[in-house]
């Protein structure tokens, strides 16, 4: 794939996004617009994990 970083690099980015969203969700309990949208975004980030992070975590990565 043209211009595609290695799966490890992509996974690093996914984990960073996840970490930030978890922080936003937990820090903003009194701010529903922030906490609920962060939680919802985490559901989408989980799909990135299923598509990419599992491959890295389970050591199935060739790239």
């Amino acid at each position: 794939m043209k211009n595609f970083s290695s799966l490890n690099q992509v996974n690093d980015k996914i984990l960073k996004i996840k970490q930030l969203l978890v922080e936003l969700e937990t820090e903003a309990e009194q701010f529903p617009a922030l906490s609920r949208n962060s939680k919802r975004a985490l559901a989408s980030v989980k799909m990135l994990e299923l598509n990419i992070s599992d491959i890295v975590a389970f050591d199935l990565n060739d790239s």
Partner: protein
Amino acid sequence: MSGQEYWNPVLETMPLEKLKVLQFKKFKRILNWAYTRSKFHKALYESAGLTPDDIRTFDDIKKIPKVEKSMMRGIQNKDPFPYGDALCVPLEEVSAFRQTSGTTGQPVYQPDTWQDWEWWSECWSFVLWAQGYRPKDRVFIPFGYNIFVAFWAGHYAAEKLGCEVVPGGVLDTQSRILKIKELNATAMMATPTYVLRMADVAKNKMGIDPGELSINKITCAGEPGAGIPSTKKRMEDAWGAKVYDHSGATEIGAWSYECNKQPCGMHVNEAMFLVEIEDLDTGEIIEEPGRKGKMIITALDRTAQPCIRFDSKDVIEWDSQACSCGRSFRLIKGGVIGRADDITKVKGVLLSPGAIEEVVRSIAGLGDEFEVIVDKQGDIDRIKLKVELMPEVTKLSIENILKDQLRLKTNLGYKIEYYDYGSLPRYEVKAKRFKDLRKKNIEKECRL
């Protein structure tokens, strides 16, 4: 590796040995999840003397007890209401309710979280991308959105791909056809029964040739028709469009799909699901192609109400051929062949209703609709087939070929009744064309 060909070019071309490692690790993960969060799953595994730690190899998976739909019916309507002890998340995390259609009995409730709905549409994204859906498509969904899961996830997946989605919910059939025409919709999702019904209404009630409309691809689900060659051909001829098969279920997810190479079968999404095929008589797991059995399936990432070794009753077989599309996800030959519930013995012969459909729809002089009724006179099984003759077609011109083909494909003789075109019942979603009246006068209606 082309990023345009596959939704996930890494997973869809991963060698089978690696896919099996992925499946095993994901299986262990979902097993642990269910064991530690659901009283139902914990009790089920402990009754077999197992904990997740006992599953050490891929072969150990078959030690895990299967889940039958009847077991799910048994635990529901209890706390946490209405899902009962299979629920693995706090009730306040459930964001969507759906239920099974009840075709085979009392409906089963299905709770899902936001993450589960993202997962549903992710699985459908594999389906639609493989069938050529792209952001330029305008997708019309002629389906009454409701408590059934059908096409909801297809809708969300099409949005995720970047398509423009037109929900054809409460419109009637003629209004839907007019909307497709008005908007130049390019793709559609529906049951095979309804795809044929729409074509019939367009042509015979509205004077519109559906082949002249702008639809260029149709995704079918809910019934096996798009995997039955003669039914697929009728749909493709009527609409001038490619028709693709897909199979999913409320309790399972969107687990298989036909790709744009139309390989006479469907790919199992082996990154998201573990499919095992069990011999109908011995219960042995079938590894090799060419032997039919029923599907035992695990959704590897579904969390609120996990689907682990679910006895789906779908009858399938592995294909020995790889697909020219390059996906390593294995093919099931001819899609879902039928349901173990539907495959019944008549006069001592195993009968699959799909075989009758294949014959009827391969004969041009017959209409799309038909009915099969099995009953008993004394100790003798009888099987009646009702068919419709197309206008200006005579019974004499059809009878011999129909009887010969039925005998050839099903090894059975039929009492055939001929009806005028348009006189048998029409269905809007799933059809009920097979009636087995032999059991205690209770009519058992099975989907074809």
